[in-house]
Each structure stands twice: as structure tokens, then as C-alpha cells.
């Protein structure tokens, strides 16, 4: 099978299928009079079991997480709620139907009640009821708890799609590789896989139908190939390739701790993007000069309340201290359709990518935003912290965010809480209006950070998660090159730095162009740092500038790809990736 090679590397192992909730069909049948008592007993037993399960989870919850467990108490109480428990029992008896069917009817009715509510907070409480009914349903149907957190052997995950919430539950040391039906190179799964250096092939369309549990599978994330039930020869060949790839990785890593300087002496900072605090180690391992993008959404996910300021501060401080004086760029909460926060996600948005997300959400919920800002300022007392506001599309947003940041600093000063209020403030340039207004915005900030993934999505109108159009998503689009150029020029005129933290920065072939355009700092998945540093050392900034002049004369992605390939393809293939270069994926349109 051929898919999109989303994270390089090879792995061989057994498949583990992750089913999707809601796909399961609920059994529906009638119950005759004699068996009614048994059916209600069956329902009561399922509820009792659910109640015991919740009690067990609560007993395991350490004291400091009590805030979380009181929602579990609410769930436990919901199990016996009249409108749920009482009603299901009544329906079983009056309509003479099986418990699953009755439960489904009741839960659908309750969901409809909540859906009509105008207050989004209360509307989302439907989720609490859902979790409770799901739990009862699981006990009724006896289907094993599909909890990917419980995987106990090293497997290759096969799923239709993995949401960030799913991936955050996975014990990643148990996962050898990822295979999904949906998703593209820039999807969330792909980013996670690359960060953790787990091979991944995405966008296979029908992998979940073709592959069965425990099938032996080879995943070649470099070329995007998946082989099911390989023959002995194939298995041997891939095993050999896998060993070669790992030794190459080890070798390239050793030189990575040295600074990256071009042949003509330009020093380039190469930083890592992280999502989980634990990934800091990976950044240091790969020789990163700092954190260029710390995505902070994870602490808000998979929970029913908001993290406290202290909880956030504690995590940020960990990251800052481990980085020991190297810059840590904390991006404030960027929730969107892809990363729905359980507590607040407004599922009624038809177009979440263009909806209430990131800075818009934060400015609308200043209390939530401010507790994060306070946590960032407090963590800043322990090292070198920069703050980054996402999805900025107007000047007012920067000003409003800065005002709240100043307010947070004043509050901390008044409360005599240790903090550092003089930190660089930057914005993500990822909305086309920010590119156009860069000359205005530049006066309000200390640095720009170009997020190429979203900028391409918004400028070219391409949903990067849609396999039908994912191939159109290409950083070497003439429009993108012109946008990056404009932002860099404006920044340098005002004397501020411009960084890039999108996937574009993670491909060595783009390095000369980006240096020529004047990008001061590149940030990427930690695993890509060594290759990028190696590339920087082999090129010169002057050549990069000449390349930009040539690139500006070309008007098609295909021509630009050819230009880069002719100028640097050999170098990347032979010197950066060594022999692995031969297998380097050709992703040309």
C-alpha cells in the first residue's frame, strides 16, 4: 500500500487497530414480558459496574488532582440520575426493548436538550452526560474498553485518524509506528510522529479495512510504503535498511551540538518545536539551540476543568529550567477545530479553522488567558522566556493581548509573586492579513515567527488534513516565498528578528532559500535539527541570496521545486542524508 510518508524511518511489528467511537452499531431488539426483569437487572448491573469503575479511578487519583476527581463524583452521581437511570428503566419496561436501545434513546434525547442551549459552557455539559452513557453502554455491550492508553505491547497503531486527544493518551514508548486512513504531511499526527521519531504513513484511505489486528506490518515512513504480511526476503531487506537508517541517525546526531554557521560565517539558530514538556530532552539530545515553539494546548486537553495557574507554571518552569538559559518560546493557547479543548469546544462551529480559536478565543475568555500569561511571566523568572501570540490578524489583537500581559505583570508585582515582566513579545505570522499589515504590526512586537503550515492553509485555501487536496499543500509556492520575503524585509528594516517554525523549516532543501530570505532562526521537530544544522554548515548566505533572486523569477511550484533540486538536491541527498538520501521521498507535484 502506498500513502504519504509523514515521518521518516522504518519499523516492523504487529498491527493494533484503534476503532472509532460511534461506528459501533447498537443492538436493538424487543424483549418479551417474561424477560423484562432480567433486562432491567442487566442494565442495573452495567450501571453498578460503571459506578465501581469511576470509584476505582477516583481512589487512584492523587490528592493534588482532587480538582479533577470531583468531576468524577459528578459523573458517578449522573449514573443514577432520574432523567437517565430512571428513564431507561421506564422505557425498558413500557416499550419492552433491550437496555442498549433504551439507553441510546434516552441519551439522544438528553443530547438534544443540551444542543438547544445558548450558553456554550452549559451546552458542552452534554459531554459529561455522553461520557457517562458511553461507559454504561460499554458495560452493556461488553465491548472491551478501547483505551489506547492501555496498550501493553509494542505495536504499530492503525487508525482512521488520530486526534490530538487520542495521541496524548498513547503511551508513546509502546508505539513503533503509525498508519492512518486520513491525514497528510502537515497533519497533527504527522507532526507528533516526527517529533517523537516514530515512522508514520498517513492518508492510506482503507488501511483500517485491509489490515487486521496482529497482522505483521512493515511501515516505511521515508517512502510512504506499507507492506502487510511481508515475505521472508522482504522482511530481511527491510530489517537491514532499518539498521542502516538508525546508525546513520546516530552518526548525524553526534555532530549536532556544535553551533550552525554557514560557510561565509552567518550564524543560524536552530531550535526545536515541542508539545509535551517531556520532549525538551529530545530537543537537547538533537542539539537544539532552544525551543522555538512550545505548543501549550496539551495541558488543556482530556480534562473537564481548566489547569490552574500553578499547574501551568510548574510545567513551563520545568521546560525553562531544563533548557538552562537557552530561549524558550511559549506560544499561548491555540485551540482550533483540530485541537478541541474538551471543556470549551464549540462543536457547532461549521468551520473551526476560521472560527473562535487561538488569540480570538483567549481575548474572549480573559480569565483563562490571564492565568496562562501569569504562569508564563512566573516561569520567565527561571530562564530566558519569550511569549508568542498565535493567529494574529489585526493590530487590535496585539494591543489587547499586550494589555492583558501588562495587567498580569502588574498583578504579580502587587502580589509580590516572583516573575520576569521584561520578556520578548512576538506574534505568529500565519494569517495573510498579518503579512499585509506586517509593516504596522512590526512596531508593536519584538519578533515575528512565521508559521508556514497555517499560512499556506489560509493563503492557498487548502485543508492540509484532506488527502484529496493535501498534494497542493507545498511550501515552495511562489505566493508563500513572496510573503516570507515581505515579512523578513519589514522585520529587518525595524531591526527585529524573524523566525520560522513551520514544517518548511524542517526540510534541508529549503535552508539556502530561507537563509537568503533572511530568516534568523529556524525551529522544527527535534528529530530534524541535526540534518538542518548539517545543511547550514554546507551552504553560504550569499548563495542563498542569489537563489532568492532566481526563485523570484519563477511562477510555478513545479519550477521552484526543480530550481531547488538542481541547486541543492545532490548536496542534500549525498551529504546531508548520506546513503539514506537515495530513499528520500520525492514529493514533487
Amino acid at each position, binding site marked *: 500500500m502506498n500513502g504519504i510518508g509523514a515521518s521518516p524511518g522504518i519499523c516492523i511489528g504487529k498491527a493494533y487497530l484503534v476503532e472509532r467511537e460511534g461506528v459501533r452499531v447498537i443492538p436493538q431488539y424487543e424483549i418479551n414480558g417474561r424477560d423484562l426483569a432480567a433486562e432491567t437487572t442487566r442494565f442495573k448491573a452495567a450501571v453498578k459496574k460503571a459506578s465501581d469503575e469511576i470509584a476505582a479511578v477516583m481512589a487512584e487519583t492523587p490528592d493534588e488532582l482532587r*480538582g479533577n476527581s*470531583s*468531576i468524577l*463524583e*459528578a459523573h458517578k*452521581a*449522573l449514573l443514577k*440520575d*432520574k*432523567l*437517565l437511570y430512571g428513564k431507561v428503566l421506564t422505557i425498558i419496561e413500557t416499550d419492552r426493548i433491550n437496555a442498549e436501545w433504551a439507553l441510546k434513546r434516552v441519551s439522544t434525547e*438528553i443530547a438534544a*436538550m*443540551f444542543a438547544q*442551549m*445558548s*450558553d456554550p*459552557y*452549559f*451546552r458542552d*455539559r452534554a459531554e*459529561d*452526560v455522553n461520557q457517562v452513557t458511553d461507559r454504561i453502554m460499554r458495560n452493556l455491550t461488553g465491548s472491551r474498553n478501547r483505551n489506547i492508553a492501555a496498550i501493553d505491547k509494542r505495536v504499530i497503531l492503525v487508525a482512521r485518524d488520530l486526534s490530538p486527544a487520542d495521541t496524548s493518551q498513547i503511551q508513546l514508548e509502546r508505539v513503533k509506528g503509525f498508519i492512518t486512513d486520513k491525514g497528510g504531511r502537515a497533519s497533527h499526527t504527522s507532526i507528533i510522529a516526527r517529533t517523537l521519531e516514530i515512522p508514520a504513513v498517513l492518508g492510506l484511505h482503507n488501511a483500517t479495512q485491509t489490515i487486521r489486528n496482529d497482522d505483521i506490518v512493515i511501515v516505511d515512513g521515508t517512502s510512504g510504503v506499507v507492506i502487510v504480511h511481508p515475505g521472508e526476503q522482504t522482511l530481511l531487506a527491510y530489517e537491514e535498511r532499518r539498521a542502516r537508517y538508525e546508525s546513520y541517525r546516530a552518526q548525524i546526531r553526534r555532530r549536532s551540538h556544535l553551533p550552525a554557521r554557514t560557510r561565509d560565517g552567518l550564524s543560524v539558530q536552530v531550535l526545536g518545536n515541542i508539545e509535551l514538556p517531556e520532549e525538551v530532552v529530545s530537543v537537547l539530545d538533537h542539539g537544539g539551540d532552544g525551543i522555538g515553539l512550545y505548543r501549550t494546548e496539551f495541558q488543556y486537553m482530556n480534562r*473537564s476543568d481548566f489547569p*490552574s*495557574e*500553578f499547574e501551568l507554571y510548574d510545567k513551563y518552569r520545568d521546560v525553562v529550567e531544563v533548557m538552562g538559559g537557552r530561549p524558550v518560546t511559549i506560544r499561548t493557547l491555540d485551540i482550533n477545530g483540530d485541537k478541541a479543548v474538551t471543556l470549551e469546544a464549540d462543536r457547532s462551529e461549521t468551520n473551526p479553522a476560521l472560527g473562535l480559536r487561538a488569540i480570538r478565543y483567549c481575548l474572549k475568555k480573559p480569565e483563562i488567558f490571564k492565568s496562562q500569561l501569569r504562569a508564563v511571566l512566573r516561569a520567565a523568572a527561571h530562564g530566558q522566556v519569550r511569549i508568542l501570540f498565535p493567529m494574529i490578524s489585526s493590530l487590535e489583537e496585539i494591543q489587547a493581548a499586550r494589555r492583558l500581559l501588562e495587567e498580569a505583570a502588574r498583578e504579580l508585582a502587587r502580589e509580590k509573586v516572583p516573575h520576569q515582566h521584561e520578556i520578548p513579545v512576538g506574534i505568529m505570522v500565519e494569517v495573510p492579513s498579518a503579512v499585509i499589515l506586517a509593516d504596522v504590526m512590526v512596531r508593536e512586537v519584538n519578533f515575528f515567527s512565521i508559521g508556514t503550515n497555517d499560512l499556506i492553509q489560509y493563503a492557498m485555501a487548502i485543508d492540509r488534513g484532506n488527502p484529496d487536496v493535501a498534494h497542493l499543500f507545498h511550501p515552495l509556492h511562489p505566493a508563500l516565498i513572496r510573503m516570507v520575503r515581505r515579512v523578513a524585509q519589514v522585520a529587518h528594516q525595524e531591526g527585529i528578528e524573524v523566525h520560522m517554525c513551520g514544517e518548511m523549516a524542517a526540510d534541508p532543501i529549503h535552508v539556502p532559500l530561507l537563509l537568503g530570505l533572511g530568516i534568523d532562526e529556524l525551529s522544527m521537530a527535534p528529530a530534524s535539527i541535526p540534518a538542518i544544522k548539517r545543511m547550514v554548515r554546507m551552504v553560504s548566505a550569499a548563495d542563498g541570496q542569489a537563489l532568492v533572486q532566481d526563485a523570484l523569477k519563477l511562477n510555478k511550484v513545479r519550477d521552484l521545486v526543480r530550481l531547488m533540486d538542481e541547486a541543492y538536491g545532490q548536496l542534500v541527498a549525498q551529504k546531508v542524508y548520506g546513503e539514506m538520501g537515495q530513499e528520500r521521498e520525492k514529493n514533487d507535484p
Partner: protein
Amino acid sequence: MEDLACTLHIVNPLGLHARAAARLAAIAQEAVGAVWIQSQAGRADAASIIDVLTLACPQGSRVTLEIDNPADRPILERMVRMVQNGFGEMPGDGHE
């Protein structure tokens, strides 16, 4: 029968959310007769979390707690106290 009902405001920042509703319902379930909670959105059975949640009462909303049976007066009083204390989750008593 004035003393079988009490009107008051929801003071805690999160309003009558799931946990608060659960605590309220737990008390209401001890009552002999029915316990009601009335807001501008309508009337709900205080013993049902789901019913209470569907009233969607944010901070500042006005609600009336009502009992059918005079024997439940101590229950009404406990519920009133709980609402007035903001379900023990007012700023300053839960935060770090």
C-alpha cells in the same frame, strides 16, 4: 406558604455547572417530597443533575428553590446555604 420557597442568586463564577448540580441533587434526593428549582428558563427537578443543568444558570442568575413537603424544610435550608456559599468554590478558597 412563603417558607416553602426561597429565591436567591447564583454567586459562584462557574454557575450551576455539573459538579455544583451534583451536590445540589445529592441533598435534594434526601427529601421526602419533590424539590424544585425554578429559573427564568423554567422549572427543574432539583434531584436530577441533568434537569438542573438544562436550566443553564450562569453566575448572577436568580433561582427559586421550592419544596412540596413542609417536612423538607431542613433540606431547603441546606440547599440555600450551599448556593449562598457558592458551592465552596469561590475565588480564594480553591486556588493555589
